[in-house]
């Protein structure tokens, strides 16, 4: 395996409403920022994650290439998923060994449509979509299957929103209050806020990583796993695919200073914490996490960026990032980010 590291990360000041910018206009400043940070204007590979259904326009991701300048032609790919999965593709591409840098970005404007019903469109068209099962409803089914402790969930939202208020990129949301249900057992504040935003990450391999960053955030392990789509085929109270991905990524091979988890509903935090088997002293979502800002299709990549940022600025030595896709945590990606390159770690371990 080649040592691959996150060397730069940028994200927008996310917005809870439509600011009047197109997706490409939202994206452009963060691409500029990572170019400035790395001094690179072209990359060996470019990969993005977005969802055409958010804008309701086919190939909307192609317009986003305007934010890059794709001439002369660039080597480019796209996933119709959160950009964390685009980062995985870029990491695989860097393993080929013929290129040393990759640009990964994701963006989403949930304010344009009705996210709850846009997410219905990802469901299987025979058994689930015809029922009109919306995103908050299926998440509520999972919350009910888990049967989480109300006080614990309230505290997760309170902590996430407080951390979000301290994060200039996240929304300013008040402490949770109210006893109304959105879809019981979920209260409105258990649900990640509708958010517009974008994020970009630069990956570098080998010597280039050391040239571009003082302490690159090395990807010590990265893996993703998936479960059956149909909710009734699964035990919704557990996330075995997140647990498998965490084992494959090597989460348990060392201490974890910080974990950034793609928690879009408060009950997902205890589920993921258990699945990833995180130590008690691990700080969860110090950025506020998606409960404080959830630019769909970028929010998972932001978890990787936020975890990497803490390695890059020396505040953490080992961090974990998680991203998810599909209904009720169907697919989960887990990455371990470390201040030491995995090859040296391996050499030390002999």
């Amino acid at each position, binding site marked *: 395996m080649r040592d691959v590291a996150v060397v730069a990360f940028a994200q927008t000041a996310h917005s809870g409403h439509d600011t009047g910018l197109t997706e490409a206009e939202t994206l452009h400043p963060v691409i500029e920022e990572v170019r400035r940070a790395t001094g690179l204007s072209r990359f060996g590979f470019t990969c993005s994650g977005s969802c055409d*259904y958010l804008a309701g326009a086919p190939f909307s991701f192609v317009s986003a290439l305007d934010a890059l300048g794709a001439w002369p032609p660039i080597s480019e790919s796209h996933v119709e998923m959160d950009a964390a999965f685009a980062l995985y593709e870029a990491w695989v591409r860097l393993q080929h060994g013929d290129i040393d840098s990759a640009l990964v970005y994701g963006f989403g404007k949930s304010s344009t449509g009705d996210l709850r019903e846009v997410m219905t469109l990802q469901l299987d068209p*025979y058994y689930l979509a015809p*029922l009109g099962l*919306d995103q908050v*409803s299926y998440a509520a089914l999972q919350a009910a299957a888990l049967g989480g402790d109300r006080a614990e969930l309230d505290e997760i939202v309170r902590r996430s929103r407080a951390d979000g208020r301290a994060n200039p990129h996240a929304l300013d949301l008040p402490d949770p209050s109210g006893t109304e*249900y959105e879809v019981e057992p979920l209260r409105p504040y258990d649900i990640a806020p509708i958010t517009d935003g974008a994020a970009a990450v630069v990956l570098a391999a080998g010597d280039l990583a050391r040239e571009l960053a003082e302490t690159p955030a090395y990807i010590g392990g990265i893996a993703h796993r998936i479960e*059956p789509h*149909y909710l009734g*085929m699964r035990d919704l109270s557990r996330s075995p695919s997140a647990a498998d991905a965490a084992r494959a990524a090597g989460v348990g091979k060392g201490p974890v200073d910080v974990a950034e988890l793609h928690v879009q509903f408060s009950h997902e935090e205890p589920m993921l914490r258990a699945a990833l088997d995180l130590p008690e002293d691990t700080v969860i979502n110090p950025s506020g996490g998606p409960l404080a800002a959830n630019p769909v299709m970028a929010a998972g990549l932001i978890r990787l960026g936020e975890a990497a940022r803490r390695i890059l600025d020396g505040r953490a030595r080992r961090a974990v990032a998680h991203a998810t896709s599909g209904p009720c945590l169907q697919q989960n990606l887990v990455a371990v980010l470390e201040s030491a390159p995995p090859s040296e770690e391996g050499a030390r371990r002999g």
Partner: protein
Amino acid sequence: MPSDPPSALSAGTTAAGPDPLEARHVLEFPGGYTRSTGPVIGRFLTELRDRRIVGVRTAGARVLVPPLEYDPDTGEAVTGEYVEVGPAGTVQAWAWVRAPRAGHPLDRPFAWATIRLDGADTSLVHAVDAGAAKAMRPGLRVRPRWRERPSGNITDIECFVPEVTMINAPVRAEYRVRPGAALTRFFTKIKDGVILGGRCATCDQVYVPYRTSCPSCGVLIQEEREVADTGTVTTFAINNLPDPRAPEVPFVSAYIMLDGADIPMIALVGGVPAHEVRQGMRVRAVWVPPEERTMSMANIRWFAPTGEPDVDLSAGVPGGGV
């Protein structure tokens, strides 16, 4: 609010008024998108049209409902064996939708649920029309309610409804009741504004209302004894369910030991907030005006505080009860 629809889809206005550059955009396949079902899902939907629910057996002998082409555990193709399941099943997890959305299967509050149909090894996701969230629980038994004209769609099941576990059984019979000799005598005196008791000579106890035999020793009571319309509250209850005899809710019903009686009589207490009524409180009957009196306890509206000092009940009740 995470669930608020964007203004573009509802009104097309902003705080500053209508935005002339904001357009409504609809993504739709007119008439719907045509999809082939394949043999496995097609079999399920065909059976559904005939109001049967089938699962498919896997090589590992599990029954998948709804059927999938491949066993999610092993990736192996499922067997060709279809098994009728349900139609009843058991709710595993449920989520209550307070405000249904346009795309939802019901237009009134309902539950989403994972339902383990009898004979199935997996759960079906569907709606449950249960009326209220408190009717839902894991373990609830439910059955499908079928659409009038099934067409081979998962929505041929309109929703599931709870099995019958309760019925409402009306009970009603009418009677003509008379109070009997002793109470007739009592009510005759009540019409005159007098509360009549009876004294047992053997036990030296005065019973109110008047009765003709002693409940303690069984001898005939021969002595009528008029008692006062004042007395002491010995115990009481605050009632929060309406009663036709009480003017309002909450009301207080109390045991009142009338002066001169040895047995307390139950009556309403009024003219005082419910929370101020206490044991030992002195009260007096509030009578309706003489011209309105009948042979009925309605002659006494209720008992109201006299304002006298409370009686210390720890020393025994006044009137010298045994």
